[in-house]
């Protein structure tokens, strides 16, 4: 546990004008076990420190003692809400390091299911963000949509949340029989549901009062910290790895990237809603263009990438999730390093919160969309 920089002892409440408040690891709004220590002057935040590590499970060290194909289930548990994307980073890193070429059908199925996962992750973000700010009904509605996606995952992969979706070289099973029908039914209903959420939130004056101008970060500052994903695009920086360095089938699919302007919470909210709409568009296109063929490439008996190191990253729902893999030629990796988007995004919390009121801290943590599984690994 690192040394928290704000002194946490205090004699009486009335001694100094500043108060130290601990938003402890167990808290309904910190999205996991995050401890935030706030120094307050009345209700205004003047200093903030994050204490992480409560969910550290030693995943990177465990990976050094497992074979390459056995490490994939551990990646699901990092960002447990976007397990399919996490799995994708790992298998793509190994495949690219080995020079395996994955059949096109597998690429398209990967694209479809990863975009479904992006929608699922953003729905959970919307649900918890709205819950923190007070609109509880949106939580239940968004979880209902998410339930439909999880049913598709269950029928395809066998698990709802931590799917172990991909294998090195493709996937285990081809799309199940009703896959096309289920996905199309989902994408048909989904725009109406998004309109419903927007009816309740986007023009609501209370929502606007709580999110406009809160947690502002400008484009250059965001790049300096290393933000990625919707947090970066909300500040107006046009960077999306699906466009700049396409992976899976994204090179063949036509979609837009939503960009915000002011870098406040409202912009990030609108960016994520627009991203959900674009994801739905991607899924429809990929379903139309889905080629036939095998879904898994031919693999050697034991997966052994050549000696060397490799970094590959994809655009996960929370930002750029990357994998740095160092291989020493044996069946077990020498070093696996996860580049977690939430860990880097969390660094912006202090800058975003200072000067705001205590009630805004909760909104800002929500808008950064952090998952502690990723931050602590």
């Amino acid at each position: 546990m690192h040394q928290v920089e704000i002194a946490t002892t205090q004699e009486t409440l009335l001694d100094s004008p500043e108060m130290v408040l601990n938003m402890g690891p167990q808290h309904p709004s910190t999205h996991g076990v995050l401890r935030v220590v706030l120094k307050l002057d009345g209700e205004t935040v003047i200093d903030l420190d994050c204490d992480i590590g409560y969910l550290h499970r030693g995943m990177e060290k465990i990976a050094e003692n497992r074979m390459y194909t056995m490490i994939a289930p551990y990646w699901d548990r990092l960002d447990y809400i976007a397990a399919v994307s996490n799995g994708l980073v790992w298998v793509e890193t190994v495949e690219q390091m080995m020079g395996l070429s994955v059949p096109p059908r597998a690429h398209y199925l990967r694209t479809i299911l990863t975009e479904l996962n992006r929608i699922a992750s953003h729905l959970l973000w919307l649900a918890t963000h709205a819950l923190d700010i007070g609109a509880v009904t949106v939580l239940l509605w968004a979880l209902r949509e998410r339930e439909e996606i999880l049913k598709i995952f269950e029928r395809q992969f066998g698990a709802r949340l931590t799917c172990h979706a991909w294998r090195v070289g493709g996937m285990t099973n081809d799309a199940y029989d009703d896959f096309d029908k289920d996905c199309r039914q989902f994408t048909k209903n989904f725009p109406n549901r998004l309109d419903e959420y927007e009816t309740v939130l986007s023009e609501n004056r209370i929502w606007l009062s709580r999110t406009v101008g809160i947690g502002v970060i400008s484009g250059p500052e965001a790049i300096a910290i290393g933000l990625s994903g919707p947090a970066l695009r909300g500040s107006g920086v046009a960077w999306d790895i699906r466009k700049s360095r396409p992976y899976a089938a994204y090179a063949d699919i036509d979609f837009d990237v939503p960009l915000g302007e002011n870098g406040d919470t409202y912009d990030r909210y609108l960016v994520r809603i627009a991203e959900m709409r674009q994801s739905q568009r991607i899924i429809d296109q990929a379903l139309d263009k889905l080629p036939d063929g095998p879904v898994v490439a031919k693999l050697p008996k034991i997966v052994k990438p050549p000696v060397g190191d490799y970094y590959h990253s994809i655009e996960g729902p929370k930002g750029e999730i990357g994998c740095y893999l160092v291989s020493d030629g044996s069946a077990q990796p020498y070093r696996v390093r996860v580049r977690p988007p939430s860990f880097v995004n969390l660094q912006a919390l202090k800058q975003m919160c200072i000067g705001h009121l205590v009630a805004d801290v909760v909104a800002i943590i929500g808008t950064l969309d952090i998952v502690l599984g990723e931050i602590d690994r």
Partner: protein
Amino acid sequence: MLALAPINVLDELLLKFFSQDTINYVIWPLVQIGIVVSLVAFWVAYATYLERKISAFMQARLGPMRVGPWGLLQPIADGLKLLVKEDFIPEKADRWIFFFAPYIAVASAFIVFSVVPFGPDWAVIADVNIGLLLVLAVSSVGVLALILAGWSSNSKYALLGGLRSSAQMVSYEVAMGLSLIGGLMFARTLSLSGIVIAQASDSIWFIVYQPVGFFLFLISGIAENNRAPFDLPEAESELVAGFHTEYSGMRWSLFFMAEYAAMVVVSAVAATLYLGGWYFPFVHRLEEAGYHDLYVIVSLLVFLIKASAILYFYFWLRWTLPRFRYDQLMDIGWKWLIPSALINIALTAIAIFAVQALNGWRGIVTLQAMDRGLNLSATGKIIMFAFGLIGLVITGLLLSRINWRSRDFNLKTQRRNIRLVNLPKGKPAVPAS
């Protein structure tokens, strides 16, 4: 305003033991109190059940379904559970104040029902002629309970939460009191029964003349009860859990009941003052036909339905709208509601003056000669209705002038459009298979 007990057989039995006066002034009121307290307690308990069911339906789910058919026994199960919990007083807490605070909250919420007119004749416990003042005064005592609870818990967060809650409640009480004055100008009596009779005698609900007043009263009542969208001091995602952090078991459930009872109080007073109370257009014909008791019971049902409709509005607001931040909340109380209430009073006074000047009173010229009641002629009604609408417009204009500098006012309904950019595609990391 005392009426005899309706059941004559029982009456004869009691007359053997007590004098007529004792029955009128002691026994019958005790019976009424018993009925009203159990009715309100039942109403409060099932308000919690209804809240869970209605919020569930709004969220596309079912709510309590297991305890009893359709979950109807859920409040009883909750009550039993809370009764058997450990009675815990924190070590450093101030014992006696900690002990009494929940009782003060519940008592102040229930005492109000002694003046609320549930029905015409014997359905009021005490028709005091300062009824409305009593309602406001006793509700204010409830604030004391919050402060005592927060203080006696001896916990930093409970104290802060309690202070914030009570500051909020006190601010909104000003707005609440002021918003009632508009309706009082018509009824010209503080007695709640008198207000209902004033509406009945003119066959009109005051909401038609005072839409702004109704709206203001409702909003300040919701804020007074610490209900969404004004519930930041006690919301779960807020850092301080509010004044009832250290309370558990039956004590906590008393605060919970006090909150719901206060909600029912505001609903009942709003129904009485603006929605006509127990009055409904054609029900009086029952009285004329001679069915006096049936008339009273139907009026009682009418009143309950109206108050429940407002209670539904409470639940509806809570489960749809996000909550205000504390400074925005205080902003609304002081800078929006109080000016609106004052403008409302001024406009109503002018309106009544105009009605008098334009001969809108039916056959009566001077204000002094008027009975309790309005007796407005058709002209008068039209004038009042017009003033109601004009009041809306003038209030809107003046409020926007007062608050022109407010940041929140300036950003309302500014939905931004996100631009969608089609970025150029880069090279993939590894050439496509």
